[in-house]
């Protein structure tokens, strides 16, 4: 299992859509609810959390280079407590994967395929993701690498095509009510940036481990810049009404009319977003499957790919009764849940590990 190797560049190309896929669609409206026309500042503030998550993941990786969080939590705080922590982490990722699958399908159903049952879309997507996860990490990394330009370039083109509709005055007044509103928006966004902790599942497979920290930080900055750009674009086009839209970038995309030919490009946005959602889902899916295999001490994760896929499909319904609940969950509980599992737990583990290691060193010196 461990002979599989990916490069840190490939990891970055996997993580970038992983954070952005859901973020570019819902984040503008979520942040706009709190920050109004200062929404573009929130990503800058929130990226701090991403940096922290990367830092913790890399530090833990340095202490236990061959292990993921599921394995080293047992080493750090003992077998049973470690299993309990691992269980919480796995349940979190399982639920998140279900939520991503659901929100992706809701987006498709509400914007394009109005009559298609939502289960069909979830099942189809999870099927494709399962193929990729089954194919292994190398396959996932290569696919992510191939899809990266297909995800990134249309986003830039979209922003460029929207530029004629920009109303730059929408950004004023800056910081009308002080730093608190964007900071509140940033708290919500931190939930997304905390997802950078997922690299903890991939670091043991890295071929160039020394670059992990540098690439991770570059990645956080890239995501921050992209989100700021997207937020600004949406703000310039839609103004303060951003908060009332579910998918503001989609609404902005409908403004595009270029040479009377490139019109109604929302299907293109959908295609791009499917690619992003695919990469995001495979990354989460892989983390769940790999973690579960390690939690159960299995030698190979492949046999549980399909069962876990079915579980994810079920979680996409168990976790979210309807989109109203999901929207509220996204603003109010997701950030804290996400930060708790992906930053605070690992931070705790890191601190205990550091203390234990120092004690061990002291003991070694004393002896």
């Amino acid at each position: 299992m461990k002979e599989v190797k990916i490069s840190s560049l490939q990891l970055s190309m996997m993580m970038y859509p992983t954070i952005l896929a859901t973020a570019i669609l819902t984040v503008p409206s979520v942040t706009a609810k709190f920050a109004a026309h200062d929404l573009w500042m929130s990503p800058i503030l929130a990226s701090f959390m991403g940096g922290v998550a990367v830092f913790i993941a890399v530090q833990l990786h340095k202490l236990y280079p061959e292990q993921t969080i599921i394995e080293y939590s047992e080493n750090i705080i003992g077998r049973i407590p470690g299993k309990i922590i691992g269980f919480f982490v796995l349940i979190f990722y399982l639920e998140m994967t279900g939520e991503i699958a659901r929100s992706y399908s809701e987006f498709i159903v509400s914007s394009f395929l109005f009559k298609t049952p939502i289960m069909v879309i979830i099942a189809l997507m999870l099927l494709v993701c399962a193929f990729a996860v089954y194919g292994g990490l190398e396959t996932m990394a290569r696919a992510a690498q191939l899809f990266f330009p297909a995800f990134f370039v249309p986003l830039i083109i979209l922003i460029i095509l929207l530029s004629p509709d920009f109303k730059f005055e929408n950004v004023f007044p800056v910081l009308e009510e002080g730093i608190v509103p964007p900071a509140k928006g940033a708290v919500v966004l931190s939930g997304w940036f905390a997802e950078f902790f997922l690299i903890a599942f991939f670091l043991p497979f890295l071929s160039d481990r020394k670059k992990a920290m540098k690439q991770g930080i570059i990645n956080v900055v890239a995501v921050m810049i992209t989100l700021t750009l997207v937020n600004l674009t949406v703000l310039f086009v839609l103004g303060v009404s951003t908060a009332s839209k579910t998918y503001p970038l989609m609404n902005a995309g409908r403004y595009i009319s270029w040479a009377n030919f490139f019109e109604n490009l929302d299907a293109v946005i959908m295609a791009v977003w499917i690619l992003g959602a695919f990469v995001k889902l495979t990354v989460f899916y892989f983390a769940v499957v790999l973690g579960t295999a390690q939690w159960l001490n299995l030698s190979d994760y492949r046999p549980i790919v399909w069962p876990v896929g079915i579980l994810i499909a079920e979680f996409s319904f168990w976790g979210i009764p309807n989109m109203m609940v999901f929207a509220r969950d996204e603003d109010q509980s997701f950030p804290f849940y996400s930060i708790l599992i992906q930053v605070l737990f690992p931070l705790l583990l890191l601190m205990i590990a550091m203390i234990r290691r120092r004690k061990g060193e002291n003991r070694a010196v004393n002896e």
Partner: protein
Amino acid sequence: MIRNVSKLLRRKKEKKRLDQREAKPQEKLHANFDQNVETFRSIYTNCSDVLFRSFLLFGKTRAMIIHIEGLSDVKGLEDYVLSPLMKETADTPQSFNEFLENKLSVSKVEKVHLLADCIESISSGNPILLCEGEETALSLGLAKWEKRSIEEPQAESSIRGPREGFIESLGVNTSLLRRIIKSPALKIQPMKIGEYTKTNVAVAYIEGLADPTLIKEVNNRLQRIEIDAVLESDYIEELVEDNPYSPFPQILSTERPDVACANLLEGRVVILVEGTPFVLIAPISFFSLMQVQEDYYQRFVISTFVRWLRYLFLGVALLLPSVYVAVATFHQEMVPTTLLLSIAAARETVPFPALVEVLIMEVAFEALREAGVRLPRQIGSAISIVGALVIGQAAVQAGLVSAPMVIVVAITGIASFMLPRYITGMSIRILRFPLIFLGGTLGLLGVVMGVIAIVIHLCTLRSLGEPYLAPLAPLKKKELKDMLWRAPWWMMNTRPHFTGESNAYRQSPHQVPNPEGDKGKRQGRR
């Protein structure tokens, strides 16, 4: 678990192959002449093409020549073997076989001890000379049979470049390689595959360029083959592939010696098979299927342009019909209004939904193509007339299909013919059908899902251990020079990575032609 069960089932089904060998491999020739002759006669019972010619050697010793009619040079046999040996009347010399070797004016003579080797020699056209009182036979290198002359390759024609193609004879094919690569580093390892055909197979590579583990792997996989017959190199291709279920070819086949040599020089292995002009090249990547020899024989700007045109039409061949169906069925709002109106007007009279319409047309097109390939050339033109008139014109006029659909299918057809290797075009054409279904049922979402699935499949594929999408994913920046564009020759300094790090450079750098600079230098020297 399922795998284990099926393995158990398979074990039960496995039948023991009957050992059909004519002679046990270790059986030696007898000292008794009559017994030897008897053995050969019993092996070759009911083989009217095997000729036994007995004569008296030097007028006293009994001897026999065994050869197969039409496989050996009869004139040579008469002039250089029979007549000197029969006419000569000398005393029996000290070493009989040595003397024979000195007397025979044939360039290639081998001593043979084993019966199996004798049979092999006879069936490959080299006559066997048996003598009384000798335990060894002589294999005379007089093989000569009718073969096609070297012609222009039919399946891979080009405007500029050598016009020689491989033929069915292995010896000629290896000589074609050797004529291009004169260095002794070009190694050709012989092998025999096929229980009945005993087909000669040769593995060619360049020592120092090809990765030794790769050669080992190729040899291992070839030696594992146990099959009755190898009639074409595809037999071997299917038996050594990494993923036998994939629609994509993981081994390249070519008719052109220059292509084979170019690949040898990039560290790949070439497998030549007797009886077919198509040689196999491995390992390859998906992008080798997009390259043609002519890319390297014309100006790099043009080659780059053509290469990008190919990538574009690869996308068209794969996606155009399914995207058209998806847009016409689900995403009409994507189409600009005027275009939408004309499509709608054309489709008004058509009784079928777009999905059915495109399937009818695509299947009809595939049938036309297949019919055109198999038919004799004289009738082939009739097919195109029928196809163009009936399907193109009449179907539209009758209102069975819409004109835009005919255009879509035609463009797709042209696009799939643009792919340089016929086999690549085929795999793309096959994958088009599931995509059309996905586009007709789930719209663009389905198409994107299908493309993702294909990409995942391509990412898992390997060709003899090399990733199939090699220079792109995993990314090899240095090799993009031969994928994203065709770099001019003075920039192609490094070899592809699987050549190994030890021998990374293929030419000296800084060879950009710069006449002005040269002039300056020369003047400076003066």
